[in-house]
């Protein structure tokens, strides 16, 4: 490590301004922090500055909201006044409480983190690779390693833990990867479009309480609408209570403009049509109601046997698989299973959406309790450490993907990005380009990098930004893959140096002149990285 080492590393924090950060650009000497949700690698949408988390497709959720609100609204507006005055005011009161509970549970299920498991840090991933290699043993070229699984015995049952290639972790038991949200979710039940989110460990109880209370609400409203119609028909005749079409809605809105007496009579008549309107709404909802009650019965069964929808569908614990097959997670009796699912401790979110991203932290994002592990000096070492790893990975993949490229040459598809982002010498938050709803990286070559390597894109973009800021470096290595010059060693090495040292010296000011002699080759660094490179070569050949 040579250049930048004498400069106070504190400057590292000045230059790192997130280009995708919505907060205004401040002077270079002020620190700007990005919230972690902006650089979250999954396909989720975030609202209210990270407080709300939903899936990408939320159209059906809005439909659910509209259906519930319209139906309940019609009930409260047109049936409740009659019922309150003729039966008891407790009816609208109970209805109101039920309605708020339903909405509360729906919003809670939709907006909370279902139990997303954060992706592995580069160090963790490399360590896992090493262990997998050690377990599988050395292999010749062209050998396809077996699928990555680990077996563990839980309460007497053998459970296979699968390796997730996207998140680079061995999934805990009962976790599954949601392809819609592109996240591993703990105790994954299913992805519910009605709720607009995955249903997992942290929001299963809200989901269940939502369908339970919605069933009660549906039955409640249905029952009292029928009561209303029957009571009215006792006075005016059944057919006249039903005959008015919903087309009289616009007339009802004009009722308040007429005088009080006529208004009251017309209002009552409108109520008849409204009750028929509500009735119609419920016939439509009737079909949904069947699905709802089926859903409720199914989930009640799942809760009482402590299974997930995923497990039930796959028949993981079915006795059809084997006589000794049983659910190792069940507590033995229905009551304990239900209590555990509904009243057990609620684990906190593991992904810290609203935490601030440390300017040095490369992707994937790690959860932080707000305490920084590293001081500025350590940031330097840590970052370089991780960037070496990222760069080695990148070079390996490029070497595998593009046989014409010389491994020593500059392989900077991200260099093309430099052109697209002129004048940006700041570096933090380039990973925000991977954030949800963010634009795809401007370079198509960047987009061709595997999406499971967000760190690479990050490093690549860092590199591009860096090289753009430094006109000296620009000459040497803004080469697209097609232009591979196979140059003599110094330029590629200086590129590597640039890649690995994006931050400290490279504030808004260009660095001192690079000395090609004072270079390092990441491949000749400690064995940790050699191993990860070797492991990744195997990975890329799979």
């Amino acid at each position: 490590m040579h250049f930048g080492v004498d400069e106070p590393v504190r400057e590292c924090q000045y230059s790192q301004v997130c280009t995708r950060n919505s907060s205004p650009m401040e002077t270079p000497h002020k620190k700007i922090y990005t919230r972690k949700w902006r650089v979250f690698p999954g396909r989720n949408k975030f609202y209210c500055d990270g407080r709300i988390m939903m899936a990408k497709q939320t159209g059906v959720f809005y439909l659910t909201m509209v259906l519930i609100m319209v139906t309940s609204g019609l009930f409260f507006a047109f049936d409740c006044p009659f019922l309150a005055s003729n039966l008891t005011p407790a009816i609208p009161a109970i209805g109101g409480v039920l309605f708020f509970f339903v909405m509360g549970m729906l919003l809670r299920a939709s907006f909370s983190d279902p139990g997303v498991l954060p992706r592995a840090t580069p160090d963790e991933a490399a360590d896992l690779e090493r262990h997998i290699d050690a377990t599988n043993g050395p292999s010749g070229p062209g050998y396809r390693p077996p699928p990555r699984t680990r077996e563990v015995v839980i309460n007497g049952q053998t459970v296979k833990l699968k390796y997730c290639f996207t998140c680079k972790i061995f999934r805990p038991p009962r976790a599954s990867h949601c392809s819609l949200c592109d996240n591993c979710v703990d105790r994954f039940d299913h992805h519910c479009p009605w709720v607009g989110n995955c249903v997992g460990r942290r929001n299963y109880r809200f989901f269940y309480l939502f369908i339970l209370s919605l069933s009660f609400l549906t039955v409640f409203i249905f029952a009292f609408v029928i009561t209303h119609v029957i009571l009215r028909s006792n006075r005016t005749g059944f057919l006249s209570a039903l005959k008015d079409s919903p087309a009289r809605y616009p007339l009802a809105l004009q009722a308040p403009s007429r005088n009080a007496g006529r208004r009251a009579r017309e209002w009552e008549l409108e109520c008849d049509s409204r009750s028929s309107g509500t009735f119609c709404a419920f016939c439509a909802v009737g079909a949904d109601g069947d699905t709802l009650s089926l859903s409720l019965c199914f989930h009640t069964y799942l809760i009482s046997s402590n299974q997930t929808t995923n497990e039930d569908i796959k028949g993981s614990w079915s006795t059809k698989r084997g006589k000794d097959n049983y659910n190792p997670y069940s507590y033995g009796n229905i009551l304990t299973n239900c209590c555990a699912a509904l009243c057990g401790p609620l684990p906190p979110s593991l992904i810290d959406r609203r935490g601030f991203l440390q300017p040095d932290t490369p992707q994937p994002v790690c959860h932080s309790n707000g305490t920084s592990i590293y001081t500025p000096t350590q940031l330097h070492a840590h970052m370089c450490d991780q960037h070496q790893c990222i760069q080695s990975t990148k070079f390996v993949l490029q070497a595998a993907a593009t046989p014409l490229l010389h491994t020593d040459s500059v392989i900077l598809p991200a260099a093309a990005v430099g052109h697209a982002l002129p004048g940006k010498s700041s570096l933090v938050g380039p990973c925000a380009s991977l954030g949800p709803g963010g634009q795809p990286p401007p370079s198509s070559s960047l987009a061709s990098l595997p999406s499971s390597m967000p760190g690479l894109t990050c490093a690549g973009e860092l590199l591009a930004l860096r090289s753009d800021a430094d006109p000296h470096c620009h000459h040497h290595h803004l080469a697209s893959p097609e232009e591979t010059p196979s140059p003599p060693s110094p330029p590629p090495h200086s590129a590597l140096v640039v890649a690995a040292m994006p931050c400290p010296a490279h504030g808004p000011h260009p660095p001192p002149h690079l000395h090609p002699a004072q270079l390092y080759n990441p491949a000749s660094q400690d064995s940790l990285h050699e191993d990860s490179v070797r492991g990744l070569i195997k990975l890329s050949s799979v």
Partner: protein
Amino acid sequence: MAETHSLQDLRQQAAIASKVFIQRDYTSGTICKFQTKFPSELETRIDKQQFEETIQTLNNLYAEAEKLGGKSYLEGCLACLTAYTIFLCMETHYEKVLKKITKYIQEQNEKVYAPLGLLLTDPIERGLRVVEITIYEDRSSR
């Protein structure tokens, strides 16, 4: 033997030699529990018993957080009755224990691990997947 470091020294001056990851132990189910197997990389740095004691204490704390009992059921029922709005005002039992764990790890780092050139990372910062132990370069061995 590594020369004595303070936590501050470590963070400011030492370079990272390597990292060790203590994985989760799923033999008891999905509860949060870490393997107590002593990693070979730490053999020269720390006493096996000390390490096991730390991990065991962590496991006990996590078990306390996830314990099913009268107290947790009461909290769950109360929360349900208030439509979970009660958590706007108060912390869950799990969160309280997590804070306890963070404090314990900080304390262990200051008293035991930093002087030996090691640093424990709170598992919550790694999504409760691993206990990450950073091994710093031993300056005395240069």
